[in-house]
């Protein structure tokens, strides 16, 4: 339950008053308002068009045969019987598709397995048929003979000199994607199966560790989890008579996906059109082409459009889940418990292919590692390693939940070892104005301590508690993304209504609503006067897509640029109409135009312009891409648990989450991001895990893969610390990847507080708690 007051309060920053804040200069008409989703009614009435809803004449269904082996040579494939089945329109194996491999950065994913399979679930053959049932029946008629090869499942084992090499041939990768990263990056270094090794250093961690008062070293393990979106990966490809390739796919970044597809199939970008569709949840998992390339080749072979929908079994066994990770941290402290140096080794298990990840390594694996703290010396090594398991991809704040679980447990362990209150430990080391981040970056508006204090106060950290009850906290820092190009077009119609055309789908976050609010705010109109048009990739300008908390910032800037131009064009029109110089035109709070002694509203002006062929008016806008914003944000989570010493069960009773925010564009979607992220984190902490045995996913059913249910969710109180300082144009900060990262450590820290059992591996389970209690008893 959220305690959200309905009053707008001006806040005293340090008090963390629960409120919704907007910058004073705003009109109050759009930004800051709890506007209903612009796509809400279409979604709840079933009118929204998802990729799976698209229907075309002669549409076929495609299905894939997948490997039962984690590593094997394909000796032979016989598709004769499958081809002969009535209703089957095309059957493909690796031999029927080009050798080109696909990848968002590392191009290592074959369209269909070519001679070898590298994980259980790899696509070996594909069928397009009149119905899904016929396609599935055809799959059963395909005979594949395999010769099993040695396989390796753990990243640590895969790096040993004797390990089987999963990709013996050199893998091509996009060099540009590696350029932006800081630190010392080596792609495919001479360590078996390593995709990338990144070493980032600031200061001299080795010396600081060598001479430190005390050193702590702990290791942690975080398993792979699934993004858990409702809509499975879905795509539909139709090839027109003129050769135009039409694609409908659940993909968060259609422009980039189009570029990748063009390269993979050897068709020019302007001969491929990704059409706008609604997306049923992304959480980072829908950035790749997934089945789109197979679907294209099936459509080409059959001469008919083909649709492919993954089922939940395929999603859980062969989607692109979050990387599992093992993390070792060594930290030096001085006699006052101040952090002097952190040495971190992070190993991500990438699975059999690296191509689902658009960057050399997961940014969260190092970018905000210990970012909430002042750590003068820091050495981080991050490895991404191939294994014969399901290939991993991006998921909400890629890498950060794994690493933050480690850091925030580690800090807690150090605090307890030093006899220090965990809040005090964090306050003492909190990064503050003027400090550099552990990576040596300069950021502004550092309100870590204030955020912790506001949360601790609301939570009642110091209040007495009963036995069996535990309290824990965690914190995290992450700036909005300011990378990647965003282009938009604004059009004012002859009726004065404003249309924003953009290339980004709303992945479910409510972004189209935010975009409408930003537009409305620039023109001081209500959101009802703004329409959002998601263009296809031929008709909309380039958009890098949703990722890294960037859209509100980057599209916000593109909208601002377009709005500026539009206002100038409108002023010129108004000047012409009112017979004055454009510089004499004033724009009123209601969006009307005035000159000395005359005034005209936008609608009338556009009507007048239309009669002269000067309306509608369209203006483009784009952002100036950078990297991350230098204005970062902090979050502090507080969790209270009850632990049953007899049965090992842990119940999450209460969460307080405190967020350092800028302007909140829409309090409903903002709170939605906070709550959704927290629930995802509860899942990772308490029950979710992709369990593998000999490389095969065992939790292949939503009954076994345990997403949290409503009954598992605790009472929740959200504290917002408004304080501006955000990024242009309206001083916003980001919220999308703030709430889902650090909570698991707050919960396991609370379990430790309750019964003294330290869980260094997620998720929490009855047997881990009981095992901890048993070890405790035998030590005593």
């Amino acid at each position: 339950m959220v305690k959200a007051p309905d009053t707008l309060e001006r806040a005293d920053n340090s008090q963390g008053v629960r409120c919704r804040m907007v910058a004073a200069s705003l009109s109050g008409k759009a930004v800051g308002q709890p506007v209903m989703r612009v796509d809400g009614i279409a979604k709840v009435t079933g009118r929204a068009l998802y990729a799976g809803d698209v229907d075309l004449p002669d549409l076929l269904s495609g299905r894939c045969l997948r490997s039962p082996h984690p590593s094997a040579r394909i000796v032979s494939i016989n598709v004769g019987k499958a081809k002969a089945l009535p209703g089957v329109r095309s059957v493909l194996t690796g031999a029927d598709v080009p050798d080109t491999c696909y990848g968002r950065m590392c191009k290592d994913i074959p369209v269909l397995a070519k001679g070898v399979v590298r994980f259980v679930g790899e696509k070996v053959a594909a069928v397009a048929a009149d119905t899904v049932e016929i396609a599935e029946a055809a799959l059963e008629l395909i005979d594949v003979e395999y010769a099993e090869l040695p396989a390796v499942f753990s990243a640590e084992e895969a790096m040993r000199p004797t390990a089987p090499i999963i990709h013996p041939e050199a893998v091509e990768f996009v060099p540009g994607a590696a350029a932006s990263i800081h630190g010392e990056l080596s792609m495919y270094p001479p360590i078996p199966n390593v995709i990338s090794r990144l070493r980032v250093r600031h200061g001299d961690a080795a010396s600081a560790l060598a001479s430190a008062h005390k050193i702590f070293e702990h290791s942690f393990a975080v398993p792979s989890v699934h993004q858990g979106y409702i809509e499975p990966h879905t795509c539909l490809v139709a090839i027109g008579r003129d050769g135009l390739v039409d694609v409908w796919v659940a993909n968060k970044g259609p422009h980039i996906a189009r570029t990748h597809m063009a390269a993979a199939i050897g068709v020019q970008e302007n001969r491929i059109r990704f059409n706008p569709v609604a997306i049923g949840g992304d959480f980072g998992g829908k950035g790749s082409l997934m089945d789109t390339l197979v679907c294209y080749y099936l459509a080409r072979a059959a001469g008919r459009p083909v649709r492919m929908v993954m089922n939940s079994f395929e999603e859980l066994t062969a989607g692109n889940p979050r990387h599992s990770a093992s993390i070792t941290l060594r930290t030096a402290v001085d006699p006052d418990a101040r952090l002097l140096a952190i040495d971190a080794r992070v190993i991500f298990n990438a699975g059999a292919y690296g191509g689902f990840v658009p960057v050399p390594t997961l940014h969260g694996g190092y970018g905000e590692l210990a970012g909430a703290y002042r750590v003068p010396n820091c050495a981080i090594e991050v490895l991404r390693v191939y294994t014969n398991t399901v290939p991993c991809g991006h998921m909400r704040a890629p890498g950060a939940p794994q690493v933050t679980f480690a850091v925030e447990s580690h800090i807690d362990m150090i605090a307890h070892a030093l006899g220090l209150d965990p809040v005090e430990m964090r306050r003492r080391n909190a990064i503050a104005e003027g400090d550099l981040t552990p990576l040596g970056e300069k950021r502004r508006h550092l309100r870590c301590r204030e955020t912790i204090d506001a949360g601790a106060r609301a939570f009642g950290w110091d209040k007495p508690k009963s036995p069996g009850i535990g309290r824990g906290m965690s914190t995290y820092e992450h700036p909005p993304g300011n990378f990647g190009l965003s282009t938009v077009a604004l059009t004012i119609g002859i009726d004065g209504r404003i249309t924003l055309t953009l290339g980004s789908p709303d992945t479910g976050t409510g972004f189209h609503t935010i975009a409408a609010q930003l537009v409305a705010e620039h023109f001081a109109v209500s959101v009802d006067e703004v329409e959002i048009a998601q263009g296809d990739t031929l008709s909309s300008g380039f958009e890098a897509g949703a990722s890294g908390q960037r859209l509100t910032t980057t599209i916000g800037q593109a909208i601002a640029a377009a709005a500026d131009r539009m206002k100038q064009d409108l002023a010129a029109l108004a000047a012409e109409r009112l017979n004055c110089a454009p510089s004499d035109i004033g724009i009123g709070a209601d969006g009307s135009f005035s000159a000395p002694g005359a005034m005209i509203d936008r609608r009338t002006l556009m009507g007048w312009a239309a009669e002269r062929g000067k309306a509608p008016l369209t203006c483009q806008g784009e952002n100036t891409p950078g990297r991350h914003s230098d204005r970062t944000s902090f979050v502090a989570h507080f969790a209270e648990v009850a632990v049953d010493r007899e049965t090992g069960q842990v119940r999450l009773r209460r969460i307080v989450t405190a967020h350092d925010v800028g302007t909140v564009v829409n309090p409903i979607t903002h709170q939605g991001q906070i709550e959704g992220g927290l629930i995802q984190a509860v899942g990772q902490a308490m029950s979710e895990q992709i369990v593998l045995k000999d490389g095969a996913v065992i939790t292949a059913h939503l009954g076994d893969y345990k997403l949290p249910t409503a009954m598992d969710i605790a009472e929740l109180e959200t504290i917002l610390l408004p304080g501006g300082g955000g990024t242009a144009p309206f001083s916003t900060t980001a919220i999308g990847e703030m709430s889902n990262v650090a909570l698991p450590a707050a919960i396991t820290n609370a379990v430790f507080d309750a019964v003294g059992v330290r869980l260094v591996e997620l998720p929490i389970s009855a047997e881990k708690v009981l095992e901890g209690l048993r070890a405790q008893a035998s030590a005593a």
Partner: protein
Amino acid sequence: MINFQYARAVSVSEAVRLMAGTPGAKFIAGGTNLVDLMKMDVERPTALIDVSRLPLDTVEETPGGGLHIGALVRNSDLAYHPLVERRYPVLSSALLAGASQQLRNMASIGGNLLQRTRCAYFYDVATPCNKREAGSGCSALGGLNRMNAILGTSDNCIAVHPSDMCVALAALEAKVHVTGTRGERVIAFADFHRLPEAEPQRDNNLAADELVTGIELPQRGFETHYSYLKIRDRSSYAFALVSVAVCLELGGGRIREARLALGGVAHKPWRDAGAEAALSGQSANEATFMRAAALVLSKAKGFGHNTFKIDLARRAVVRALSQAAGGTPQSQSNKKIA
């Protein structure tokens, strides 16, 4: 899923006749288990005989003072039935501990009795499984067996029966009414489900053509001293790691009669006569409970990932007995612990 025939039966005799005349057919009631298994290709029936409209959806008092529950009564209707809530609260509690509200609204009593194991390998047709395909082997033995059995296992199968309701029915000593081509018969609950032994493909002792028509509860419901405790990974929509149904009759600080059944530990709801005998006549205190719990688990055997269940089950038995004796049964709506 493969193609299949479909027929809706209008009477019990028609259902039985259709079943006997259609090799490879299956009855379907709520479909919450069967359709799932068909989608996963685990069950591949040639025909579905829909029994969901048969007039077996009533709860009636029997002349002997017990209850007769039709096989098509929905799980939620039974859980909230006033007579069940008042007189057989352990059954109501066990039902509410199972599945989710939506599933309970669809699921029938007969279907619940006959639901199949949730062993992950049983569901994954790419792996060997003796229960799915006799003689193919048991992947769980050397595999991930966290959810598997610790009691009454065989070398051929270590699956558990996943039902919560059945654990309470075992404790209550219910009877199962069935009708087949050779007529009606009544099966004692303890004889309904079976242990895997050499034939893990058989979950129970029902003949292929037999339809479950109802469940009979004896007069004794243990309305004061009972508990249904379920330990699981999340609060709803999760099968038991271990569950315990306890029914006690107390008098003068002593246990006059004890019923104890465990779920999530064996191929059938697990009752232990020895442990029950060890409880009766004793004073209702922790020492007694621990003795009984130790007896129940004395023959338990772990298989690696599920070995923790032995200790967990022991603790759960003690907890459930204390709850029952204290008149403080486990609540299913407010799962406060500690």
